[in-house]
């Protein structure tokens, strides 16, 4: 990614399911102190387990980490965790919109919906990252991000704990990057370094 492409990233959406939490944790802890791009973490979650994920992530970083409320503004440098049993969408005025719309690929939150919504609003300013997981949620979202001019990174399936999710994306689209875990971490760190 050249410098101008780095500068255009205004939102990062990380999607994942089974096997992705370790990378997500490392990614967040590795963020430089002055990293000011908002980062949405959209992981499949158990419906009635509301506590745990947010607290765990807060424990590993001094950065602001929160589950957004409906109509909350998107703030720079904040890590947002999609709440359990809601879809997380974006509005044109750069606020969050929560939704209880039916499940997509049996999932709510759906990675597809978050990524597609982010792509519509942020267009070329989105970086979508798709990690390990057991279904095809996120593939269509990554394709939309690419179509809208955003940047896309898929975890290398040979590196993923469960390859179904990255493979589904690769069947549907050609991402800008296919990286293993270590490269994903350094890539995000360097995103800000320039």
């Amino acid at each position, binding site marked *: 990614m050249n410098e101008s492409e780095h500068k255009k990233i205004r939102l990062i959406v990380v999607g994942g399911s089974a096997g992705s939490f370790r990378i997500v944790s490392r990614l967040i802890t590795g963020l430089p102190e002055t990293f000011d791009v908002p980062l949405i973490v959209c992981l499949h979650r158990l*419906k*009635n387990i*509301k506590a745990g994920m947010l607290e765990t992530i807060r424990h590993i970083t001094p950065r602001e980490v929160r*589950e*957004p*409320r*409906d*109509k*909350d503004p998107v703030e720079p440098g904040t890590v947002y965790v999609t*709440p359990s*049993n*809601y*879809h997380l*969408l*974006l*509005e*044109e005025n750069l606020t969050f*919109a*929560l*939704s*209880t*719309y*039916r499940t*997509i690929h049996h999932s*709510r939150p759906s990675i*597809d*919906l978050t990524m*597609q*919504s982010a*792509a*519509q609003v942020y267009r070329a300013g989105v970086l979508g990252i798709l990690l390990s997981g057991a279904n095809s949620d996120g593939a*269509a979202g990554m394709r*939309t991000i690419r*179509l809208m001019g955003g940047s896309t990174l898929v975890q290398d399936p040979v590196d993923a704990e469960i390859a179904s999710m990255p493979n589904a994306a690769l069947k549907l689209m050609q991402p800008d990057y296919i990286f293993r875990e270590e490269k994903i971490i350094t890539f995000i760190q360097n995103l800000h370094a320039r």
Partner: protein
Amino acid sequence: MQRLVSQIELRHIVQTIRKKFGLELGVLSQAHLRVVLTGLITEKGMRYPDILVQRMLDYPYLLQELIYELDQPESEMFRDPEVWMQIRNVVLPTLAAWRDEPTAWIPGCSSGYDLFSLAILLQEEEPGAHKGIKRSPFNRSRLESRMTIRASSFSSERLEEARRGILPAQTLEWNRSNYALSGGRGDFDHYVEKVDTSWRRKNRLPGLTSFGEQGLLPGRPVWKADLVLFRNRLLQLNREAAGQVLHTICDTLRPGGFLVLGFLDRYPDPDRFPLKPLKNKLGIYERI
């Protein structure tokens, strides 16, 4: 689901529907509207949103389908069981102790999942539960026999589902699980029966339940309410419309009455709305 409807396409659809059908979709959250429209377009196998608008002009029943889709019900019964436990253990006993004939309003009741959840709680009310409420001087009959429930929604088809008590089969497991987690005292299956391929509420609703139609935004009723259930409906509205509806609800609620919002609905601004949150931040507010 295919790509979401774009901003330009959305604007065109909203303007056309306003002009041709007099329905103001501009009060809705654009993000929510996009998802619903895209879902409908995908389901109908249409490639472009323009086709939906054109078909709606030719076949107005499609507008009813859109209205049906916009009137999304709660995802399941007893959604967020901890909230329903609070309703069971605090809200209803308080109303039972302090109101002769309380009224509950469920605007945007859609297919009736919250209505049915409330009906079950009323059926399971423990005798004398209200006596645990501080300073209650009265010995009252069961709440179920004296609570009026008014349910309204903007899709007549959803209202009909609520009247008939239809429950999608795919929500049954979650309903059972949520019921148990919310303090359910019996067997959830006692309340439902299988009819062909779907499920239906078996028991009658409380005798003082009525249904009525409303607009996209609930209007101010002529009566007052002691309990308003409006869970995850503000999500579907834009900020201005959400504020307007909160004003309507606050004006309808009697002081000491309760408003139950969704778990992650935006906190009502205390400078603008006379609502005090109950502790535990479960989205339950008391009208002050």
